């Protein structure tokens, strides 16, 4: 009797799960496993069909100079974008959380970059960076600076890409900080004021620690985005010059759809996913203990 009902319940439960499960398996789980499997096979051609080669793809990846350069670029990209965009986001949030004239307008302007598609953003910034006629060179010319090909120089191109990403992301992260700031009771600041705490002391000892859950959330998003956000490369540089602005995901795209080396692309994808997983778990384990959740 009970077991019959139990089985009925089980069937019922599985039936409810099926629609979501089908979608997840088709578009997430199967591709993930297929990618992992593909990374152990060679790329097939008409004359030489694909065959199992074990870790050979990983071995050639380690010998691939472009991979190392792209990885290094990506690390600099992450180091350049994450702390600065978070710091600016926090600064903007604290600023627009105060009572100031036209606060709504200021908040909206800070948030605008977020709602623009990255492709559009890249087009806007292309006008800034274009030699001779771009905004940067025009302004530079006023002070007698020579014209500079910002996106054509291997020394400046990554910096330019980093600047765009910060500009786009800071407003997005600001919204989370702003929401968190508005849940802080105003009495906390009043109590601190009565004790004679300066605004900086209050920020350091109260506001910032209480914002830590938001910071963790934003940090994980920023890390993922620093590996994920490559749309601007399609418009601005296509990874050039000399791979100086290429990022991991863009390199994966190139391998898969320009060089048609699906299996090497799969190998790179597996490595990227593993790296992201390790970073995310690390952030949770290390930071979670230090965070106060209300």
């Amino acid at each position, binding site marked *: 009797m009970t077991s019959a009902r139990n089985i009925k319940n089980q069937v019922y439960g599985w039936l409810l799960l099926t629609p979501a499960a089908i979608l997840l398996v088709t578009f997430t789980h199967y591709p993930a496993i297929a990618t992992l499997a593909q990374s152990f096979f060679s790329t097939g051609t008409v004359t030489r069909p694909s065959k199992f080669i074990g870790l050979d793809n990983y071995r050639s990846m380690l010998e691939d100079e472009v991979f190392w350069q792209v990885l290094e670029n990506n690390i600099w990209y992450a180091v350049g974008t994450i702390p600065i965009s978070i710091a600016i986001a926090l600064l903007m949030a604290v600023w627009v959380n105060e009572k100031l004239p036209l606060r709504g307008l200021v908040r909206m302007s800070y948030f605008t970059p977020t709602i623009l598609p990255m492709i559009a953003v890249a087009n806007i910034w292309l006008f800034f960076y274009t030699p001779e006629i771009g905004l940067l060179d025009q302004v530079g010319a006023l002070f007698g600076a020579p014209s500079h090909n910002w996106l054509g120089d291997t020394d400046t191109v990554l910096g330019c890409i980093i600047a765009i990403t910060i500009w786009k992301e800071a407003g997005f992260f600001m919204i989370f900080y702003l929401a968190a700031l508005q849940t802080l*009771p105003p*009495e*906390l600041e*009043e*109590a*601190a*004021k*009565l*004790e*004679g*705490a300066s605004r900086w*002391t209050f920020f350091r*000892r*109260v506001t910032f*620690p*209480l914002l830590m859950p938001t910071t963790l959330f934003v940090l994980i998003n920023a890390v993922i985005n620093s590996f994920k956000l490559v749309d601007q490369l399609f418009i601005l540089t296509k990874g050039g010059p000399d791979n100086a602005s290429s990022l991991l995901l863009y390199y994966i795209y190139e391998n898969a759809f320009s060089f048609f080396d699906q299996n090497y692309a799969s190998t790179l994808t597996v490595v990227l996913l593993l790296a992201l997983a390790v970073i995310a778990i690390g952030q949770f384990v290390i930071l979670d203990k230090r965070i*106060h959740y*209300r």
Partner: protein
Amino acid sequence: MPAIELRGVTKKWPGTVAVDTVSFTVEEGSFVVLLGPSGCGKSTTLRMIAGLEDVSEGTVLINDTDMTGATPAERRVSMVFQSYAIFPHLDVRENILFGLKVRKIPATEQSERLSRVADLVGLSDLLDRKPAQLSGGQRQRVALARAIIAENPICLMDEPLSNLDAKLRHEMRIELRALQRRLGMTVVYVTHDQTEAMSMADRVILMREGQIEQIGTPDELYDTPATTFTASFIGTPPMNLIALESGSGGGVVAGTKTTVVAGKLGQNRILGIRPEHITVTTTGKTAGRRKAAPKGVPAQVSSCDYLGADTIVEATCGEQSILVRVPGRCVLEEGERVGLSWSNEDVHVFDAETGQIVPDAEPLSVAA
């Protein structure tokens, strides 16, 4: 020397005047309660003393120094907030020490003062707890400890007990009062609960719509209310306010004939009398077959509310309802005819239009 003095302090917001030319002094070491219904400006007044709210007009003096424009920190006052304003990410110890650390007090003195204060408020065993692990009463003590450890002579309290349950509130009331006496603190305490005001205050400042209605000791406010507002705000149940009209010999309770106030004027007068000052007389059934009408102002019992130590009897007199406090359990039937009597010493006469007391009125005793 008064610890705090307000001279014509006004707080205006666009479209409203929250506090309207309020002046009072708070003597050093005294416990003063700002009492009033919600929205009467009592909290705003307190926040202006603390410096958390700008003063629109007037002067705030603390220890005879003009502090109207001073920052909260310069005023050297402590404050206990209604929400306690405890820092949720810091443990009890860090919460209490917050101010001392900000002011860079030496570590040895910090721990000395901490252990003394923690002892005083009974938190010694809970110093390592986070606020989330504390009960409401314990959080209240943390807020209190943080205010005490600063050793400021003045402590401001904004409805500090309103988030506690009734039993705890009663205990804390006694404890707070004892602590204030022991430490000789000057306390300004905001509440809308007249029981708190009556039981704790040296002096009560009753506020209404941004203005001071009456200042006095709790018994002054209770025994000699200057207005109908004071009369109806203080006391549970509050003073009966009975409309009068002109009768043959003077003022009578509307709808009855017994003269209760001498003189011609009965119209526009209100008779104020506390429930415990009225005596209920019933007709003795033993007197015979015929029931004699009970003496005093005739009334009819409409309900009895038994509270244990006493019973609140609601009687209808004319068209007005009058509350009477009768000791012990009172057995009166609904609809029973009774007589109400009182002594003229306990009666207050107010002007119906202004609500002010009429000092030269001559209320009469009503004999039982």
